[in-house]
């Protein structure tokens, strides 16, 4: 990344059709692809997005059959009368199908189908031991599941490698904050403040004049660490940082503090370019659970505003409640969708 091009630059590389929309405000730093996309990949023979669509419709069709005619289907594949299990499996199929067709996080949903195939094979194995079962029909069903599983696996791997190579996400967000550029710059420059409003961070520790060590929370209680460096510093106006080469996470960011034209505080603009670590399960999971970088930065800026304006971050975590339902327990306390 060039450290000289803080001003809007029109000479940036031509954007490909898939490049995200960039507003005039978001082009104040120029990104170079070459250093980040060293990885190459093999051209898949079948368009994986198309395959995902086909598998999505297949999932929904099979799922509907399992939900609506569980007994007939059970007899057809030789496992006998198990309508409840069949209906549950049907709902799983429909969820995977809708996920695939939604065109968001397709690779995660494709992987969910691979997992579903494994589950189906395991259940067929269990059913085969039952005396009510018809072994010939079960063998035929298992063969069918295995061939679909091969397609699912192919689609998942192809989608993962395609999505890893799709352009890095550039996320831009802004928020008006009732404060001065000077105060906001000073707050942000003290990097130890960042975890106070960036909820996915555990800590940021300064390691030198311009360098710091970041620890972020990852799913399943794991953490991700990296080192970052301030590559541009305009006192009271803005900062740019990027991860040092060789980090597990590749990320560049810029924050600008612009006085509101009408004198109503300061507009804080953040632009982050975020390269998902390809194939890393953590990021796939994060996506599946909706922790999109754009939403995260939006929430982070909201918390920064709360912290600067009110001195605290609004919360209800730790307040009393009556007996929750299972859904409530699963939903409340995390970011609600």
């Amino acid at each position, binding site marked *: 990344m060039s450290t000289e091009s803080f001003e809007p630059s029109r000479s940036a590389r031509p954007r490909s059709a898939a490049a995200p929309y960039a507003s005039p405000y978001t082009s104040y730093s120029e990104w170079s692809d070459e250093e980040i996309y060293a990885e190459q990949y093999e051209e898949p023979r079948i368009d994986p997005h198309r395959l995902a669509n086909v598998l999505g419709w297949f999932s929904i069709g099979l799922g509907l059959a399992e939900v609506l005619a569980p007994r007939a289907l059970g007899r057809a594949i030789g496992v006998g009368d198990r309508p409840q299990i069949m209906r549950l499996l049907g709902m799983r199929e429909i969820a995977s199908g809708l996920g695939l067709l939604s065109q968001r996080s397709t690779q995660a949903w494709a992987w969910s189908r691979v997992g579903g195939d494994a589950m189906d094979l395991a259940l067929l194995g269990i059913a085969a031991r039952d005396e009510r079962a018809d072994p010939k029909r079960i063998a035929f069903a298992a063969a069918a599941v295995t061939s679909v599983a091969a397609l699912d696996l192919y689609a998942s791997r192809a989608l993962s490698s395609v999505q890893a190579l799709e352009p890095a996400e550039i996320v831009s967000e802004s928020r*008006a904050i*009732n404060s001065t550029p000077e105060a906001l710059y000073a707050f942000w420059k003290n990097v130890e403040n960042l975890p106070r409003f960036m909820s996915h961070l555990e800590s940021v520790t300064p390691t030198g004049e311009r360098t710091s060590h970041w620890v972020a929370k990852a799913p399943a209680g794991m953490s991700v660490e990296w080192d970052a460096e301030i590559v541009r510093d305009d006192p009271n106006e803005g900062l740019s940082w990027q991860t040092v080469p060789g980090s597990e996470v590749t990320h560049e960011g810029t924050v600008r503090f612009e006085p509101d034209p009408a004198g*109503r*505080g300061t507009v804080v603009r953040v632009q982050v370019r975020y390269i998902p670590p390809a194939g890393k399960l953590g990021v796939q999971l994060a996506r599946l659970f909706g922790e999109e970088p754009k*939403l995260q930065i*939006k*929430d982070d800026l*909201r918390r920064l*505003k*709360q912290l600067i*304006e*009110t*001195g*605290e*971050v*609004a*919360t*209800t*975590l*730790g*307040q*009393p*409640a*009556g*007996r*929750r*339902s299972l*859904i*409530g327990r699963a*939903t*409340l306390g995390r*970011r*609600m969708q």
Partner: protein
Amino acid sequence: MRAVCWQGIGEVGVENVADPRILNPRDAIVKVSSTAICGSDLHLYDGYVPAMYRGDILGHEFMGEVVDLGPGVTNLSIGDRVVVPFPISCGNCYFCEKELYSLCENSNPNAHLAEKLWGHSPAGIFGYSHITGGYAGGQAEYVRVPFADVGPLKVPDALDDEQVLFLSDILPTGYMAAEQCDIEPGDTIAVWGCGPVGLFAIQSAKLLGAGRVFAIDRFPERLAKAQAAGAEIAFNYEEVDVLETLKDLTGGRGPDACIDAVGMEAHVHGVMHVYDRVKQAMRLESDRPAALRQAILACRSGGTVSVPGVYGGFIDKVPFGSIVNKAITIKSGQTHVHRYMRPLLERIESGEIDPSFIITHRIDLDDAPLAYEAFRNKEDECVKVVMRP
């Protein structure tokens, strides 16, 4: 402690829950001495407000004694007797500085949910679904009050709970509804809905110089209270044609301002009611705007329709052509309670207003489930329920 919890559509229960504690520096804990059921709580009870979860503690009208304070609250002391406004407001943001407290930008931890539904998020509200923050409410023995240095108003010991409790919501809400009508001396105001907010809107309209106030409801006890509050004529919309009657009463011109104090669960008879019920049941329309439609059609050209009634989502068959062609001004909003509490307290102290006239039921917190049912079904002439924990 005991708390009234939402347990599903049409179900509330008193449960034993943990006591609240200070979570942020500007928090206070209030020991509740009186709390009320609001008409808007019925929208939660009936399941018309999304993002309610089993176990949510209800209640946004409450008062009591400060029993614990965070280090950031310096203007209150332990033992102070306070009334707490229902919107939670930081006092520091752009909107709070403009005294638009119910639009506070910093008090809703679930602002992203509200942004999805409404474009932007309003302030957090006690006990009013996770869209407005998921804050535990005040129908409980204790409640945590965020930004306690901004909201709670100290009240003099000379006034009893029933005189000041309604400063938390419905008195300012009725007042703001009337204030939004920009009343000129002698103006004619029509008010749909003679529940607590409608009654205070009638009273406030008179205080602000209205000439004649007409009240519309269908329950005799509510129509009687409307007349007690200052309405010249209170009529039953099931017995007369509302639009014709209002024209008759105003020489054909229509009221100068109309107030919809009914909101999303309006009831009318006839085809439109069936239409709205069906669409609402099928989730094709989230709110039933029967009163609003009438208010718009009844209002005189160039007049104002003020909407204190709560709407949460989408409405249908709203005569927008009438708004455009009659140059109607629509004003609405959750109440900026903080702005009105002190001046209204002064009017209560001077004896100009005694809000306690609306109370029909005084019960123990444990009887909340019965009270919700009676209030929803308008049984036993129920207009306002006050509970003592």
